[in-house]
């Protein structure tokens, strides 16, 4: 299968190493004035606390999920009812937040075009860990109905780590709620270590991102 070969190629050690070597950090080639805008260190994996402390922290995290208000695709339309009176997600400690700095959950609303992936990656990187990603709809799993489109990616987990997938097109608000419940449960169990996965496999993720974003005119890392 040709896809398989392609994939193996991408995952090969050399390629990752090559791309890592080519990788410029954020401040490269910027004027002094512009440099201050970017933090250019690679993301670092952070050890969780130990024992009961982490359990408590995770409980608190799970009870206060702040969604990044970025409707990346049509999935955002079902977030509206969820945020409003009928389903009222506030009562579950979930609320939207306009800036990535303050958000902890990124809901990928379905398909993501290449242009959006670029913004998704940047927004994701700007979020502070621990951060969680919810893949909404079948498009995030395997391309959905845009599987053969030249402008939408097929698998979001190639570009950022995803914690929970909700299938459906569109998933009903209830499915989303159930997805959030699942996410909460996973957070409490300490299984949502997306930020560490991202940091540990940073080169792989970057290599994948660079493969599709042809004009890589963004800093390699910016948080």
């Amino acid at each position, binding site marked *: 299968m040709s896809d398989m070969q392609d994939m193996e190629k991408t995952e090969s050690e050399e390629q990752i190493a090559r791309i890592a070597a080519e990788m410029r950090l954020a401040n490269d080639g910027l004027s002094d004035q512009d440099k201050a805008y970017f933090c250019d260190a690679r993301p670092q994996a952070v050890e969780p606390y130990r024992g009961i402390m982490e359990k408590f922290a995770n409980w608190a995290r799970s009870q206060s999920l702040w969604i990044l208000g970025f409707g*990346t695709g049509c999935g955002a339309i079902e977030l509206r009812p969820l945020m409003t009176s009928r389903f009222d997600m506030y009562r579950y400690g979930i609320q939207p937040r306009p800036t990535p700095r303050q958000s902890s959950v990124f809901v990928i609303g379905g398909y993501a075009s290449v242009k959006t992936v670029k913004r998704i990656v940047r927004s994701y990187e700007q979020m502070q860990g621990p951060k969680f990603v919810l893949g909404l709809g079948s498009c995030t799993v395997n391309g959905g109905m845009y599987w053969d489109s030249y402008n939408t990616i097929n698998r979001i987990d190639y570009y950022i780590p995803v914690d929970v997938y909700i299938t459906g097109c569109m998933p009903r608000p209830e499915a989303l709620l159930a997805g959030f419940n699942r996410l909460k449960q996973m957070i409490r169990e300490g299984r949502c270590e997306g930020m560490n996965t991202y940091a540990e496999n940073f080169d792989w993720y970057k290599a994948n991102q660079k493969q599709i974003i042809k004009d890589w005119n963004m800093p390699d890392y910016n948080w």
Partner: protein
Amino acid sequence: MVDVKQNSQRSKFPPVDAVTGKSRYNLLSGKYLKIWQGPQHPGITGNMSLELTVCGDEVIECKTHVGYLHRGFEKLMERRKYIQCFPLVCRICVPEPDFNEYLFAAGAEELAGIEVPEKALWYRTLTLEMARLASFLMWIGGQAGAFGMATIGQWTVTMRDYVLDLFEELSGGRIYHMYIIPGGVRSDLPAGYARRVEDTLVMIEKVLKDIDLAMMHNAVFKKRAVGLGVITPGMVDEYGITGPNARGSGIRRDIRKDLPYLVYDQLDFDIITEEGGDAYARTRVRMRETAQSIDLIRQMLRKMPAEGPFFRKLPNVLHWKVPTGQTYVQAECTRGEYGFFMVSDGTELPRRIYVRGPSYTHAVTLMERLAVHVNIADTAGLMVSLHTYPPEIER
């Protein structure tokens, strides 16, 4: 979201002065600031962005960026059979997918010379009006929200959800109904449906009345909306403005009346216009059209034929060849003229399907014109008042 590096490399915005060859607005002068509104921004409708150059609180240049939702529908449809395009088209516009379904079906039927049973025409009109209602409800919430009145948004989105319940009952899907198929519709109305529609309408009417009081008679709302983004009647043809945006400027244009389609010629309604051409006038037009939509739904439920088929058998859809030809079909959606230009070359696959969304001109050209010299706080409200949905721009 500012991105200095990216901007300096990519965008030629703000535009360069033709005479001096330098930027009209020297960003390094410290007098101007460039900010990006969107795509990750709650004040933007959908996933698009505005690149704004501001001087203090005043926008002096605006450039819209679209394409974040581009899926290449037109390309995809060129490699799908006609029936396979049917699930695809509704995705072009998320809040109001039925217009896509109807127009695709109507275009294919016209090219293939298929007559649709009468009952299907009524059902189609009913879904279109319900979609209009849902879309307007969401818009009202959006407009109120853009000016900071979250309460109204909470109500209307909830009301829209009740309409979605009706859709779910009718078609099996909340958002993407995929109900209007070439040849008719996919199912009959469920038993007792008319009554449940009526119940929902009553509920919505009550809320609309509250909203009228709270929003249209709101000092602060008026202060924000009156005089914002004025579209003069002269701009309407120049910018290709259609729908409530044109009607807000006193132009009597409505495809439902001008080129009646489906059963609109059998329904009793008037074109709603308002004078002023500002965000407030547009809001009034839409509020009144929401009420009109409710009235139309009631009329239809009354006049609809009870018996008869709702679907006319198609040729085998697995290898349905539509005869050579081309056509353009249009309908009045909540935002203006929605149209499908379809070209068939006699094969199983469409040669070209072009989707004309009203937001194409409203959100790009018109927005770039109107956003100049408004307060930066008003860009969101202005954007919403034009009622744009990005997916139909880039498709």
